[in-house]
């Protein structure tokens, strides 16, 4: 069983995940960021694979992706960086990228590289469920990789049930109909949506993302779901204060 699935079994509440773009702010920061987040209370880490055309991402992650690409990041470099932290016993890592990166790298080679780095969970927002079932499920399974699906306020109950069935790690609950980096608090409408999902008694753990930007939104999300993911707010923090200030960020969320 993967380390992440193990963790999700033992810890049910206030699971804290942080997203960052590999190779940002500097090319060689990837490993440092992973280590810092791990030692400062983050439960699992999403490593973003910077892409030229990140459809589901707002301006912040577009920016960090563009900087990282300019820094010279690519999948070969990322897998080298991840290999280097493998023995450090960090928090479980989840890779988040776009399908074309996997296609071009080679699906089999991508899975092989994940295995070498101890990656057991991936999020590919533009890989729809039907494509996953038809073309990726068996391959991922043979490498012990589980795929994370997203649900949104528009996802039907029937489809959520199906996603729940197919989920091994967690369901990524997109907080609102928006791209990443949404600002502002959590609205009554969003809370009604969280309550609707919660009332479905799904077997999978539910982690909220998109628009979780500070302690307040993190806490509210955790009141209804098993945990939450912070992305754009962390990127903005890194951009402003740098890698060395990471404990300040995690304290601000988790204290």
């Amino acid at each position, binding site marked *: 069983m993967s380390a992440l699935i193990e963790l999700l079994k033992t810890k049910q509440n206030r699971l804290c995940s942080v997203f960052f773009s590999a190779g940002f702010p500097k090319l060689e920061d990837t490993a440092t960021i992973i280590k810092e987040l791990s030692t400062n209370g983050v439960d699992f880490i999403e490593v973003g694979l910077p892409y*030229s055309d990140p459809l589901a991402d707002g301006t912040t992650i577009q920016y960090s992706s563009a900087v990282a690409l300019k820094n010279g990041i690519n999948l070969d470099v990322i897998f080298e960086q991840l290999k280097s932290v493998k023995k450090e016993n960090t928090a479980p890592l989840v890779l988040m990228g776009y399908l*074309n990166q996997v296609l071009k790298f080679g699906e089999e080679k991508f899975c092989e590289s994940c295995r070498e780095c101890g990656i057991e969970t991936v999020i590919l927002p533009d890989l729809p469920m039907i*494509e996953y079932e038809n073309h990726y499920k068996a391959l991922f399974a043979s490498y012990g990789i589980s795929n994370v699906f997203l649900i949104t306020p528009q996802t039907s109950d029937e489809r959520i049930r199906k996603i729940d069935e197919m989920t091994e790690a967690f369901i990524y609950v997109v907080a609102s109909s928006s791209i990443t980096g949404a600002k502002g608090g959590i609205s009554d409408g969003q809370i009604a949506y969280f309550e609707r999902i919660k009332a479905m008694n799904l077997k999978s753990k539910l982690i909220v993302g998109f628009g979780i930007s500070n302690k307040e939104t993190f806490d509210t999300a955790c009141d209804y779901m098993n945990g939450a993911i912070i992305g754009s707010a962390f990127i903005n923090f890194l951009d402003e204060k740098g890698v060395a200030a990471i404990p300040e960020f995690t304290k601000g969320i988790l204290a």
Partner: protein
Amino acid sequence: MEPKFQPTKEGYYGQFGGAFIPELLYPNVKELEDNYLEIIYSEAFQKEYKYLLNQYVGRPTPLYLSKGLSKKYNASIYLKREDLCHTGAHKVNNTVGQILLAKHLGKKRIIAETGAGQHGVATATVCALMELECIVFMGEVDIKRQAPNVARMKMLGATVMPAKSGSRTLKDATNEAIRDWIGNPEDTYYLIGSVVGPHPYPDMVARLQAVISEEIKAQLLEQTGKENPDTVVACVGGGSNAAGAFYHYLEDTSVELIAVEAAGLGVNSGESAATSQLGEVGVIHGSKTILMQDEYGQIIEPYSISAGLDYPGVGPLHAYLYETKRATFLNATDQEALDAAYELSRVEGIIPALESAHALAALNKMDIKAGQVIVLNLSGRGDKDLETYIDNLKE
């Protein structure tokens, strides 16, 4: 016989197509997929669509036997005059159809992407006609390059939103339109301008442009006694005019199909948009197709003098036509297209769009036999390109 060039239920042409969309777009795309055929082929839709095509767009467009080109190539070269459509190009065939569809679906807000501004203008036009809110995403770089079309869209009542991400051109305008759609999943309709994007868009846009080849068949029959030419030639960026010109000939392999891409400064110059020659299988804007990308799958910005042809991908139908060799893919450089545009202007008194000029330039590269009957889709008129034509005109 099973048609070979119609998509499967999931929108696949061979390995190409599909709907690679984030879950955030699933309900929108699913709604369209479940309804588009029924709506498009309903009596009410067809009646209104045909009326608008005839009385608003100005269809049927003429099929004109070019004396000058026919003489030069010792063949019969017909020009399908899409340049005479309202707004100046074939793009409006699609926007008229999709705006009716959006109305049937009860949508209130229309978004679109545009490169050169032709599809933006065609969308703003039908939104004005239907009194719907219109937001057009356009790359910041293209806004500067295509000022007259930006002004036209504004005059038609549209809001032009600059796409400031990435390379700030067509692909980024498309990304921004998709991001807007993600954020407005209920009242908004995304009116895509080419045979690209997730299923059902490629099929839907091809069907709406199919009127081009439907008319060619009838007009050729009337003029020559035969409804099939030997060859159909069209330029390809995303590929909507080619899809329309090829559509009713796809299954009949006795008709040769020639797709012409923009080679920019030369296919291997590093400044090109000849996707079939430079691309590999990949996913862009929700569709698996042939895509210009680097060794890590990052999308490469294409280049062409023609803003309507510099798309890093190509519609999935065309990727399949290329792979199966059903269509022959040629290309023309900036200079070859310019020369062809100057030539047509002089011999026929028709100033073509730079996009269509690429198709004209390919005539030089074809092995044309005496008496060969060729239909060339003249997809648009050159008004929008006058500045480029003037700048490049040698005394």
